[in-house]
């Protein structure tokens, strides 16, 4: 009887130890929560830039160039790769325009995630997935091999096909998730003799996409449609409805700005990717 009372008393009386423990818990729990839940959730998802383009256009080489300052030898990619890059000295992120030069946050804003995707026809779903579920996506660099884009070339057709698909996905994207998305068509391999200048790359891609668009509209339906399970058939016409020729400027209607600029990752005179850096820095 006595013992029970004693126990009860000991348990309920305000004891210094209990008090200390309670205070300690009260103070530490928020700290723990912060440490394990808040911090690990990756508060700072870096802004990301997506690299896409047909196989062999130099995506992985560009990625290593952006990361290290010099390019590494590369082969065909099979898996996507994300790499943390920071802007080179002398360039500033677009959002830092009004900051003081000495502001330490400048450094933090210089970092971004560059995502490489395989360009092989069977592995493009990686790229598509990144566009449809974007995570802080700031821009898309579509790399093309300017040396293979001469008219009538098979590579031009394949490139235009891929670009058409990507732009169509962007056009049909969920506007709430992704408000505006700039696309840079980076004409790589300008160091080669056969490379087309950027303006010509632009016009030949536009002409070829016009053809893709026409033949897609005339082509057969996909299996599955009209066979019971009907998809929500959105409009598959890229660009302005009823327009005769496709122009990249038509994409601005959908908040997709398309720019074309040339450069080269490899080459005797070293890499010239300043324009691309500038484009990236303006988007961050």
């Amino acid at each position: 009887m006595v013992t029970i009372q004693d126990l009860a008393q000991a348990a309920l009386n305000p004891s210094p130890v209990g008090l200390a423990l309670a205070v300690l818990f009260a103070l530490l729990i928020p700290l723990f929560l912060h440490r394990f839940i808040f911090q690990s959730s990756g508060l700072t998802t870096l802004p990301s830039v997506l690299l896409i383009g047909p196989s062999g256009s130099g995506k992985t080489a560009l990625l290593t160039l952006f990361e290290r300052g010099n390019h590494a030898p590369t082969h065909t990619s099979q898996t996507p790769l994300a790499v943390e890059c920071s802007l080179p000295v002398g360039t500033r992120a677009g959002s830092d325009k009004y900051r003081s030069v000495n502001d330490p946050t400048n450094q933090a804003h210089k970092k971004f995630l560059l995502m490489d995707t395989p360009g092989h026809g069977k592995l493009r779903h990686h790229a598509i997935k990144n566009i449809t579920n974007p995570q802080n996506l700031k821009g898309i660099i579509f790399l093309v091999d300017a040396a293979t884009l001469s008219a009538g070339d098979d590579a031009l057709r394949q490139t235009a096909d891929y670009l058409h698909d990507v732009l169509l996905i962007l056009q049909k994207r969920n506007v709430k998730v992704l408000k505006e998305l700039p696309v840079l068509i980076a004409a790589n391999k300008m160091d080669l003799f056969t490379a087309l200048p950027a303006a010509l790359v632009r016009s030949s891609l536009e002409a070829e996409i016009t053809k893709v668009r026409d033949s897609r509209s005339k082509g057969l339906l996909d299996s599955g449609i009209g066979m019971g399970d009907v998809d929500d058939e959105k409009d598959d016409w890229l660009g302005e409805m009823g327009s005769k020729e496709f122009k990249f400027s038509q994409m601005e209607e959908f908040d997709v700005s398309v720019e074309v600029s040339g450069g080269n990752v490899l080459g005797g005179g070293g890499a010239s990717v300043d324009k691309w850096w500038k484009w990236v820095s303006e988007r961050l």
Partner: protein
Amino acid sequence: MLDTFEILTTTGVVLWSKSYAPVNPSVINSLINDVFIEERTLSGAGVGEDISAANNPPYKHDQHTLKWTTVKELGLIFVAVYRSLLHLSWVDKLVDNIKTIFIDLYGDQLKKPHTTIVECHFDEYFDQQMQQLEKTGLGTDSRFPDSPFQHQESRFVGISRDEPPPLPELGGKQENNTLSNDPTANELNRASSADNSRPTTPAGHLLTAKRPPGGKGSRRARKAANAASAHASSGEESHSKIARANKGATQKKGRKWDADGLADEDSDTQLDYSAAANGTTSDQETSERTGAVEVVDQATWGSKTGKGQFILKDLDDQVNSILASADSKKEDSAATSTGIVGSSLSAIGGLFRNVVGGKILTKEDLDKAMKGMEDHLLRKNVAREAAVRLCEGVERELIGVKTGSFESVQAKIQSAMEASLSKILTPTSSLDLLREIDAVISPSALSLQKKRPYVISIVGVNGVGKSTNLSKICFFLLQNKYKVLIVACDTFRSGAVEQLAVHVRNLKELASREGGEVELYQKGYGKDAANVAKDAVTFATQEDYDVVLIDTAGRRHNDQRLMSSLEKFAKFAQPDKILMVGEALVGTDSVAQARNFNTAFGSGRSLDGFIISKCDTVGDMVGTLVSMVHATNVPVLFVGVGQHYSDLRNLSVKWAVQKLLSSN
């Protein structure tokens, strides 16, 4: 010799490479495309976490043979390239060893996210492995099993003639040679026995002096040894000659002597100096001088990690320990799996993880579920061969992978199979028929091609619907206002031409509304199909047709007599596209059909696409799609889904995968 050795990631970045001869990067690119992405030659590859290069089928690409192995969890590929003419038996071993060493050294760096930079100074390790394996490789090739070292030496003497500059180790070598001529048999015996037990011990040249009785040493080796002792103190030239010979013989120990070698040239007693100066004693000297010291030396061998002087020894040691630990780990894992307590505990943990997720999948976990998946695919009319391959691919992909939180093994397999199926069905390049036709019939002014009609021919076994699908394609082309010529090359079965004539009559009727133009070209029965086709194409060129559609006779794919005429046909008609019609109803035979037709057109020509007909009759069981693509890697161009001219569809991969995985 090897041409090149590369370590690259699946993301395409080359981490480390060493090339002895320039190799076009397209060689390795085609390995990646064919083996890893399109999985053309993987059928023989073993399933498991730790695949040795020996189990992977070598890949051959113009004159080069590639040996490769992968590390899945790190996404690494190790490739050795050499000329196909050579038979390098040790390449497998090299690739495996390099893999083990590289993972051990740089595994941590490779796991870092968001970077491609791996700081690796791998050249020395690689050179060490190369030399060791080359040596053992030659040793095992020896024709004189009782005196392998001598033979080896003779070989090296031969090789070393064209070896570049002698290293500055001449003095040391020479000193050794003079020492070896001393009649101290005890020492020599000890040295040579030590050498036998460990072939990397740099005492090879001693063995030339102490030739085992009865051993048939090659004359060259003997001569080299004699020359070495005779001109021991002559000028620089003989020095270098000896050094070359010796360097060849004891290629491996080269670097170890760097520090001593220079000192040795001045006097006779410098051995002690160099030893004192370095603060340590090199093996070479000790092994020659006293047995007692040698024993000590062996004990402290591993611990000697100098600042560069003894790199090679360090490397040897490090490499050996890495390889040994990898081996023992393997044995351990084999051994632990048999413990009773351990296994029951892990079984409970496994059950728990089955539900919660976060389980690392092993072959045992997967086996049952994979069997279920295989049966499911077989029920969907996928040929057994294709189903097995798909399951193997998924298994290979999943072993060693961690399941996500609250993800069951089944769900994981389901999603992996979905990815695998879409990968196999997705074409490598776009299949826009209309644009291809446009490119041919109206070539751009810049490309120097002349306008010509686009030729499509259709092949297949009897009764799969060749003529019907041809008419469907024709209708589709007519809708797009092309001028089409249909050619009846079935000159064999009675009624075939008339059947096509009926189709053409109907299509003409429709075309007048749609705006295209269609004609039939026929030469009756009994003519040679290839000639008819050739004439038709010439006729079409003259008459300015856009597209030529050639219907061929149905033939049994396992009848060599009928199939052989296809080669001539392909040569004469020069079709831009050869399409094979396969019916969705066919089961296991689809693989053989596709394969035989794919090879029937001779080398350099294969099928360009499949048309899978009668898809509306099979419901969910569209496995034929997968079987045919599996067999040939040729994409499916169209699927036939009904009786009408308009019932032709492009293949939607999503739709097909959904049908294949739906359970009923």
